[in-house]
């Protein structure tokens, strides 16, 4: 069948209801067989199916003039087939269609009940599709709704693109009417076209009919059509006959009011704050399950209280994170630190870590600063110690106290520790450890692969006091670790106090970098106790025993040749024992007795015996009953 030359894409008004179909039709016309094959367009009667088919044919021929496009209605196809069968020319019928490039088949809903045509069409379909030829079909209903349709045809119809066209919306209707008026060169009074577009028509064809009547009315000189006269002129349509495709009033409004309820319910102002805060926490990586559950609950939560509670929990999480990471750096970055529901678990972890990583040993409370007697021999060290207690980590860092054995270094070290703790009201963590223990702990940590824990343990202290630092000699790893710990603590403003048996610069067994750091703080020496110190020590020790010695005795005792505070205390102890036996009275003779015994002690200390007799203090050490014993001892 020849194509209607008026039915082109240029004359087809595209609206929302048919945009898809038109786009698909254009695509097909521009490259037949390549895009949607078959293209199945369905729409109610009078909405432009035939127009589209024709437009495809025109455009395809325009683009490729030698292209063979054939438009045929289903009725006509049935008729042609009948004739061919009657004349016995079925083969030539088939051959004619098989040579087409585009088959445009209109109204395929009429295949209902045409079994012969259906099977012939199926054959044609296969032929054309095999050779990549385009097929376009139209129907007033989707393929699945075409009664009696062969299943094989149904699948083929649905196998390409199915596209429908709806009734045009208001704007499109206006556009269609205006185009029609333009074609007819008719101009209506303002508002007429728009009014017609608002009227109820079953389809575009009917609307065309209506505008044709109005055009005829106006061009036949019956007077100008006005908005008011339309209803009278159009009869049925003008009387507001029900029009299935015009908006059913109220649906949209109902939808809107329903939605308003939903918005008010879900996004009301009281929740806004909560939602925003939730989003904020989420961007920080925190899990906000609790807040989300609150939002989900039917009752509007109290946002203020919820957020306060959540904020407090986050604070606790942060504190736990800090603590746990300090104790066990491998936990850094754990997702649990972002989940408030993991707080209980984290508390347990922290508790375990706390107990398993008890702080380093504190200073021995037996060593009191008040019992450290000061004299010229140690006043510099005592002054430095007092300064440190006043301003830990600020003035002398590190403080290195050196001196011979028994001069009171350890006493002063522990005393500094105790004072620091006392001055901070117990808040400071002070580690006071012998160097040999420090080494042992490090070795144990290495054994247990707990080096990080060990480091964390020491890095948490506020002051690190190490006794007898020279025992680091020969321990490369310890020195290495201590070096880093030293730097970390000093940088963090934590006080370090060290004691050494010799001046730091003479500790050649230590790393140069450590020695130079020791020298970089304050190095003070405690010399063997001077007379004043000795006198104070003895007086105090006797006072503890409830004895008030006469000055002569005290002077004599202080005058004894003792090199260490430790020995002085021993002398004082001995004097106290003698005094206890003589009703609290002491004489210079007692002092000389003690002095002679005192000299014997190193021998006892040097030769520890396996014999119980000699280790019995009562029998071996102090209480020599007679002169001969003393003489023998002197001779030895």
């Amino acid at each position: 069948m020849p194509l209607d030359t008026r039915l082109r894409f240029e004359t087809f008004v595209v609206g929302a209801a048919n945009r898809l179909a038109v786009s698909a039709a254009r695509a097909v016309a521009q490259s037949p067989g390549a895009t949607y094959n078959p293209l199945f367009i369905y729409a109610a009667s009078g909405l432009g199916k035939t127009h589209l088919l024709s437009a495809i044919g025109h455009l395809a021929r325009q683009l490729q003039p030698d292209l063979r496009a054939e438009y045929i209605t289903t009725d006509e196809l049935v008729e042609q087939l009948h004739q061919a069968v009657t004349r016995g020319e079925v083969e030539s019928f088939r051959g004619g269609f098989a040579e087409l490039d585009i088959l445009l088949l209109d109204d395929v809903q009429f295949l209902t009940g045409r079994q012969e045509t259906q099977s012939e069409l199926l054959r044609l379909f296969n032929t054309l599709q095999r050779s990549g030829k385009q097929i376009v079909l139209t129907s007033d209903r989707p393929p699945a709704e075409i009664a009696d349709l062969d299943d094989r045809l149904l699948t083929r119809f649905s196998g390409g693109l199915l596209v429908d066209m709806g009734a045009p919306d208001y704007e499109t209707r206006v556009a269609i009417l205006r185009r029609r008026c333009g074609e007819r060169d008719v101009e209506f009074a303002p508002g007429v076209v728009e009014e017609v577009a608002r009227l109820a028509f079953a389809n575009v064809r009917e609307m065309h009919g209506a505008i044709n009547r109005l055009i005829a009315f106006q061009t036949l000189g019956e007077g100008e059509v006005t908005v008011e006269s339309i209803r009278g002129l159009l009869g049925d349509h003008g009387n507001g006959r029900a029009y299935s495709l015009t908006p059913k009033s109220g649906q949209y409004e109902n939808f809107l009011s329903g939605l308003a309820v939903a918005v008010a319910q879900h996004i009301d102002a009281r929740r806004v704050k909560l939602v925003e805060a939730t989003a904020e926490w989420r961007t920080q990586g925190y899990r906000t399950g609790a807040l989300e559950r609150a939002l989900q609950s039917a009752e509007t939560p109290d946002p203020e209280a919820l957020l306060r509670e959540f904020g407090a929990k986050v604070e606790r999480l942060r504190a736990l994170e800090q603590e746990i990471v300090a104790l066990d750096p491998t936990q850094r970055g754990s997702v649990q630190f972002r989940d408030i529901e993991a707080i209980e678990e984290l508390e347990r972890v922290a508790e375990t870590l706390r107990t398993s990583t008890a702080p380093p040993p504190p200073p021995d409370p037996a060593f009191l600063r008040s019992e450290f007697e000061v004299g010229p021999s140690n006043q510099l060290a005592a002054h430095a110690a007092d300064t440190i207690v006043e301003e830990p980590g600020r003035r002398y860092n590190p403080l290195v106290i050196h001196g011979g054995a028994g001069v009171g270094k350890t006493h002063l070290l522990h005393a500094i520790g105790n004072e620091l703790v006392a001055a901070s009201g117990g808040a400071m963590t002070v580690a006071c450890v012998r160097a040999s223990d420090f080494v042992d702990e490090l070795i144990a940590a290495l054994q247990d692969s707990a080096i990080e824990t060990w480091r964390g343990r020491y890095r948490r202290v506020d002051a690190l006091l190490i006794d007898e630092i020279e025992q680091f000699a020969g321990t490369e790893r310890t020195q290495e670790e201590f070096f880093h710990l030293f730097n970390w603590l000093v940088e963090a403003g934590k006080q370090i106090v060290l004691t050494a048996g010799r001046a730091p610069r003479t500790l050649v067994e230590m790393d140069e970098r450590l020695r130079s750091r020791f020298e970089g703080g304050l190095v003070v020496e405690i010399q063997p106790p001077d007379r004043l110190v000795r006198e104070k020590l003895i007086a105090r020790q006797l006072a503890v025993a409830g004895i008030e010695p006469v000055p002569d005795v005290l002077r004599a005792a202080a005058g004894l040749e003792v090199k260490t505070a430790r020995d002085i205390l021993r002398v004082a102890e001995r004097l106290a024992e003698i005094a206890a036996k003589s009703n609290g009275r002491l004489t210079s003779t007692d002092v000389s007795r003690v002095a002679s015994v005192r000299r014997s002690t190193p021998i006892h200390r040097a030769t520890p015996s396996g014999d119980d007799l000699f280790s019995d203090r009562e029998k071996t050490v102090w209480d020599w009953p007679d002169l001969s014993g003393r003489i023998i001892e002197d001779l030895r």
Partner: protein
Amino acid sequence: MSLVNYATREITCKIVYYGPGRSGKTTNLHYVYGQVPDERKGRMVSLATQTDRTLFFDFLPLDLGTISGFTTRLQLYTVPGQVYYQATRKLVLQGADGVVFVADSQSRQLQENIESLQDLHANLGEHGMDPRSTPLVLQYNKQDLPRDMIMSVDDLDEALNFRGVPRFTADALHGVGVFETLRGIAELVLKRLASPAEAGRG
């Protein structure tokens, strides 16, 4: 992506109509479009190109005006239902806040419905969206067809609605159930906007 902007008090959400070919997705949009007052209508856009098939979908922006103090906009999309437009469907689905699955109630379309639903889940998964928490409603369309051609609502429930999401029967061509469906999905989306974790299951 969806947006609740509390500063400017705006809500914008993207709703995608998904389903097998010819189940009535575009019909839904057309009906909505037809009902919206002129001053609220955006331009309905349908895109199709012959070489780049990925651009083939309907887009209907709906400016609902101020609702409870929020300027509310819905962006409605349809995906092409035909099996081979997989890439397009995936693209359109990107950033969707809610999905309306339009099922064809006809008994013979059951397999297509199921395949399309599986396809939806797969595509959501590929976008990193959890199908269980993405707001979803089902629409059993074409319920106006003769009883012997279509599946009952119970049968459809059993075949498609295993997650128990809200479902609506519809005759989209004549507008039955269209707005009910849209309201259903809009409410789910709003619920999820308000509390991101739990909605979508309701």
